[in-house]
């Protein structure tokens, strides 16, 4: 299979009653091949989660893919209705808050059973498969856990149950939206191990959404940096972390906890309004490199080493290779 996800110039509009519409995703390019592990990083509100929901068919009812193209698993056009039988079976999602994603009124085994039913497991086998599945995620006493209710489990245990449900049908694409943000450090390591184990054994692709560059570094091979609904830079993880091309990527890396030795750095200014589509650089008001052409030039992509950057004045010298795509 070729590309698992291919987004090009994707723009999502959210209609609001009596108010102007919002464009939380304005211009996103994202390409994920089979077996790729890529990350979406950026400040909260940059459109990461909405992009993930586009790919799982869980956009809010008042949101539409207004512009651009989006293809899932090489064959499904997301401008049309989300295809049947894909959600949960071929694309699965792991969420940030594991406690609230489990049905409070149903037992763990029952809930995993529902996901197994969706994956086509026969009714008679479900409870056994559910226990096996929990066991395969290194959960001690899985049969006991299957009988419990979510409120009786710790956050880490709930996340493992949610992962069990997501991985049950062996999806080709796993989307993890801040999977370890609400967990403590020890549990975080265990959950990341589980995800890596699945990816290694199944060869599935991963889209990891995280603001924690340590987690990104651990799992992802490539990174798309998003700002104000735009993908501003894409490249191999090592390049982005060591010598980012976009000034925003540089500032983001600098402000992250990754560089513990340096003094804390925060980016001045605030995110621009998403009430209108911004054809020019959205970062220019906060950018240290901004010059006068930034405010009136419509941006295209320029190639960088193994990726692209959307900036007139990148902070590292551009290479000539990479596939150059004019806007």
């Amino acid at each position, binding site marked *: 299979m070729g590309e698992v996800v291919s987004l090009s110039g994707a723009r999502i509009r959210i209609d609001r009653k009596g108010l102007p519409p919002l464009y939380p995703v304005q211009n996103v390019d994202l390409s994920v091949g089979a077996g790729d592990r890529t990350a979406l990083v950026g400040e909260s509100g940059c459109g990461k989660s909405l992009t993930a929901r586009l790919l799982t068919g869980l956009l809010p009812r008042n949101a539409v893919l207004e512009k651009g193209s989006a293809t899932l698993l090489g064959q499904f056009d997301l401008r049309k209705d989300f295809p049947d039988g894909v959600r949960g079976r071929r694309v699965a999602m792991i*969420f940030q808050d594991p406690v*609230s*994603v*489990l049905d409070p*009124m*149903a037992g763990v085994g029952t809930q995993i059973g*529902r996901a197994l039913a*969706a994956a086509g497991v026969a009714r008679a086998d479900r409870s056994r498969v559910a226990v096996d599945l929990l066991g395969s995620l290194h959960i001690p006493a899985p049969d006991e856990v299957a009988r419990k*209710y979510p409120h009786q489990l710790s956050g880490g245990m709930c996340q493992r149950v949610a992962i069990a449900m997501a991985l049950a049908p062996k999806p080709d694409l796993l989307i993890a939206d801040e999977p370890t943000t609400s967990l403590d450090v020890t549990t975080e390591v265990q959950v990341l191990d589980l995800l890596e184990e699945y990816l290694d054994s199944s060869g599935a692709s991963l889209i990891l959404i995280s603001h924690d560059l340590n987690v990104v570094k651990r799992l992802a091979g490539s990174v798309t940096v998003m700002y104000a609904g735009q993908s501003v830079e894409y490249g191999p993880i090592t390049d982005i972390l060591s010598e980012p091309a976009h000034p925003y990527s540089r500032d983001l890396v600098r402000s992250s906890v990754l560089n513990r030795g340096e003094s804390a750095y925060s980016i001045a200014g605030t995110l621009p309004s998403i009430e209108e589509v911004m054809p020019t650089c959205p970062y220019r008001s906060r950018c240290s490199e901004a010059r006068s052409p930034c405010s009136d030039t419509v941006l295209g992509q320029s190639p960088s080493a193994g990726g692209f950057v959307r900036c007139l004045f990148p902070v590292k010298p551009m290479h000539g290779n990479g596939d150059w795509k004019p806007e």
Partner: protein
Amino acid sequence: MATSTEPELDGDGSTGPLSAAGEPASTTRADVFIYVARKLGALVLVSLLVATLTFVVSRATADPSFLMVGQDATDEIIAARRAEMGLDQPMYRQWASYMADLVRGDLGISRRTFAPVGGEIWERLPATVELAGAALLLSLLVAIPGGIRAGLRPDGWADRIVGSVAQLGAAIPNFWLGLMLIYFGFYWLGWFPAPTGRGLFALDSEPVTGIVTVDALLASDWTAARESIWYLLLPAVTLASGVMPPILNVTRNATVSVVNSPYYEAALSFGVSRRVVKWRLLLPNIAAPVINILAITIGFLMGGAVLVEVVFSWPGIGGYAVSAMDSSDYNPVLGVVLLASVTYVFVYQIADLVTFAMDPRLRISR
């Protein structure tokens, strides 16, 4: 809790054991025992206070007319009558004997008929239960599917229709709606019988429950069943119009909050079918607020039935209370008020226990 449109219907402020204890990892048997005991205690206490209030009212109405001695009674006669009725006793004694009477089911004597009020209410109760039950059934059949349908797509067309119906239902006085239905259904269309009470003419068999429709069905007397339902329909629709809006609103709001919840979205993302999501995930999660509002509704039905019974000459306890009120015969009025209130208190607390038993977060863990 999602609140309804009417303040007297927005539940009580009492908190369940969950919020009292924060987020317990598990509930022990002792916790459950204490909770149930506290609920039963509250039940007894509130019933007692309700009865005390009717006691106060009954003493406030204890004027000469209440004493049944006639206009030209002398002071001696009045004093003798007061002594006979125990009104010369200290208040706490009067209260104690009032409570003792209540426990025995003695609600006093009707001034018009000189018959015990308890017996008169008992005779009329089946008619009111029939009307209220039919109205509740109708409300449930419309409001629960309607509320769920509206809540699944907030601001969709179904939500707008449901919203308008709920608004209109809450604003229309049900006695007026009853008259309008009589005008159209009986006078104009001629489809429905005259508002002359229950259709009990065709039933030959011995009454079992006293509820004509049920008795007719039990006796497989289809003609009688059809006739009694025919008579029941307009009053039941009228009464239902008043109690439906809160059920609609609560069901709709509970559904919206489940649909917007992370676990609903997550279940869909795991590929769980919409059918399973709707029946296995949505229904248990909206059950608690819906059961709560149903309990409140049952209490409200008793009060709401009064006017509907008057309009349709329905031979229930509401019409009984109103005609007693007309002739300043207060024991029947207070008897009906007491019965309705205590019923409400019971149903409400039982509903609380039911939701408690249903919620796995509150059940005993082994």
